[in-house]
């Protein structure tokens, strides 16, 4: 009996150690992607997200940047967005003001033209902001998209 109890205790100790390791393991997928700017993507405001990813939250609305998106998106899960800049840009980002976490994507342009087209999810009707970093300045354009069915969560 005694020895069985010892074995049982050892076994449960080992199991809990494994449990802790798995718990820690669950966190690693995020830690592995050190390059993924988690703070930027978790930021709750447009300015905070841009500060984390572009170094500044101050955007200037400019006619040199255009955002193409539908006026009404029937399905918020798939909203086609195109951002285009007149001048060459170093980086481009797309944000949605009304989303829980506004930053959708950001790209460093190292040779590609100031142009990006993609499809994004929107939770509700709000502004889509396209940001181009040109000569250290953040030029932006906004476009309101009306969403009939939200595409976040469900």
């Amino acid at each position, binding site marked *: 009996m005694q020895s069985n109890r010892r074995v049982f205790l050892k076994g449960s100790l080992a199991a809990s150690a494994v449990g802790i390791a798995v718990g820690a393991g669950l966190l690693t997928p995020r830690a592995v992607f050190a390059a993924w700017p988690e703070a930027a993507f978790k930021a709750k405001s447009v300015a905070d997200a841009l500060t984390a990813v572009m170094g500044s939250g101050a955007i200037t609305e400019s006619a040199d940047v255009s955002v193409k998106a539908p006026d009404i998106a029937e399905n918020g899960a798939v909203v086609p967005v195109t951002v285009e800049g007149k001048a060459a840009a170093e980086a481009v980002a797309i944000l949605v003001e009304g989303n829980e976490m506004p930053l959708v994507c950001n*790209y460093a*342009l190292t040779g*590609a033209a100031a142009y990006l087209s993609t499809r994004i*999810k929107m939770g509700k009707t709000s502004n889509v902001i396209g940001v181009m970093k040109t000569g250290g300045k953040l030029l932006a354009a906004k476009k309101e998209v009306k969403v009939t069915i939200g*595409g976040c*969560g469900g």
Partner: protein
Amino acid sequence: MAGSIKIRASLSGDMAEVKCLITHPMEPGNRKDKTTGADIAPKFITEISADVGGKTVIAGNMSAAVSKNPYLSFKAPAKAGDKVVVKWTDTTGESDSAEAAIA
């Protein structure tokens, strides 16, 4: 996820327009399975980059707010026959890459 990327690259003048379509669930991790009520684990692409003619022209990060089966289109200077290589990595560490020639 081999074969998850489809690339179309067309040349107009000295600019190539590259369109990529990636088959990926882009699961944000905040949804529940409607029948079992279990949480659906997050799985979305976080990093994506593209090389044209051996040089990285665009590289960046995505969040789960990019639609399922992400579409990405960009323009870069290129010439006919240049190779386009697109690579992605997701939150579970899975990755894929594909290449195509500019026609």
